[in-house]
């Protein structure tokens, strides 16, 4: 039976852990709020761009539009963009993502796969397993500007346009709510044109083909940017929930330990009394 002092030590150590998890939860909550704000701030542009692309697509349906980014090819080489967190302690977030990516790759045997890793966790996993890594980007989830993702998107667009890869898939965590994140596998390229609302008679300042070829890469950039923002929000939300449950688990452990400790203390007091009493009665 461990002695009283051992229990005291264990309780103190659990308390320390609890303080850390509580602090981490608070930090994540603050970061989550900021991440959510940037997700919301990015929405108007993304929605407008999508509408606009739809309208241009609808208006130019009569024309025979061909653009490298719309070209469908048999999928022989696939580029996967996997967005994970840089750090752990976020519950099952990264594990689920990596498992999802692994499953995606396993479902398509005999197809060349290469990975663009955003976030350290995904890179570490797939590097160990010998997957070709075309690029790795860290600290994007810390502070992500449009310029950062633009550079990544452009290198991927170039690869697709040069027919080095035949499709680009994006695997990331969609931010549903604070409690739930949903794994999302989305095809980024070739682009499926969104449906236009109305085929209006537009005046074209620039020819429609030129406008379309400027819009399409921008669309890819924005999709990637949005995915990174959503992943960031999802990461902080997952970490917050994980740290919250860690804190309450620590509280449970402390409660249990305190109970056992008190029982041990009482037992030793009882034993001492018995000893004193029986010692006194032996003298009589």
């Amino acid at each position, binding site marked *: 039976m461990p002695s009283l002092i051992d229990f005291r030590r264990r309780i103190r150590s659990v308390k320390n852990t609890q303080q850390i998890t509580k602090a981490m939860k608070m930090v994540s909550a603050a970061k989550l709020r900021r991440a959510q704000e940037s997700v919301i701030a990015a929405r108007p542009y993304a929605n407008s*761009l999508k509408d606009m692309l739809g309208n*241009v697509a609808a*208006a130019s349906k009569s024309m025979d539009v061909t653009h490298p980014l719309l070209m469908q090819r048999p999928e022989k080489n696939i580029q996967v963009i996997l967005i994970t967190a840089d750090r752990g302690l976020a519950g099952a977030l990264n594990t689920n993502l990596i498992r999802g990516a692994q499953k995606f790759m396993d479902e398509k045997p005999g197809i060349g796969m290469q990975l663009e890793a955003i976030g350290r966790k995904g890179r570490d996993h797939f590097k160990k397993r010998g997957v070709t890594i075309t690029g790795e980007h860290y600290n994007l989830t810390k502070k992500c500007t449009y310029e950062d993702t633009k550079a990544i998107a452009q290198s991927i667009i170039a690869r697709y346009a040069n027919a080095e890869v035949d499709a680009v898939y994006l695997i990331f965590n969609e931010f549903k709510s604070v409690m739930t994140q949903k794994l999302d596998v989305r095809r980024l390229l070739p682009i499926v044109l969104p449906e236009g609302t109305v085929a*209006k008679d537009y005046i074209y300042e620039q020819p429609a083909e030129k406008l379309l070829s400027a819009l399409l890469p*921008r669309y890819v950039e*924005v999709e990637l940017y949005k995915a990174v923002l959503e992943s960031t929000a999802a990461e902080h939300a997952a970490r917050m929930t994980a740290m919250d449950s860690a804190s309450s688990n620590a509280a449970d452990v402390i409660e249990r330990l305190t109970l056992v400790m008190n029982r041990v203390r009482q037992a030793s007091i009882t034993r001492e009394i018995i000893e004193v009493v029986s010692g006194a009665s032996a003298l009589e």
Partner: protein
Amino acid sequence: MAETFVLEITTPERLIAREPVTEAQIPGLDGYLGVLPGHAALLGELGFGELSYKTGGTLHHVVVHGGFVEINGDTTRVLCTSAEMPDQIDLERAKAALDKARKLLVSSGDMDIAHVLEASKRAEARVFAASKVAGKK
């Protein structure tokens, strides 16, 4: 006829303005577009320059750097790659950037012409807008 139309200016990172305006001057790729309520539907690319719009008699300015513009009924959407408020531009730095870009343009070095041209246009727009603000003070 309606007296105002909704002008929406967005960048990928945030919404800059969404409000009813009476008129707007939008820098298109091939020259300025003046937009008044009831403008015909239009699609085009955005150039580099100062966008100005009027709400209730006051004139607002935003410096925009490339993107798209769509006029559709009573909404005009400006999707710019990046945007700045003229009073936030550091005039000295903008001037330095413009000088650098211009020197690069006339030099016959190895470079991406389109890229440098874009940089120079951007710097020009910034200097123009910032010096106007500086002149007011």
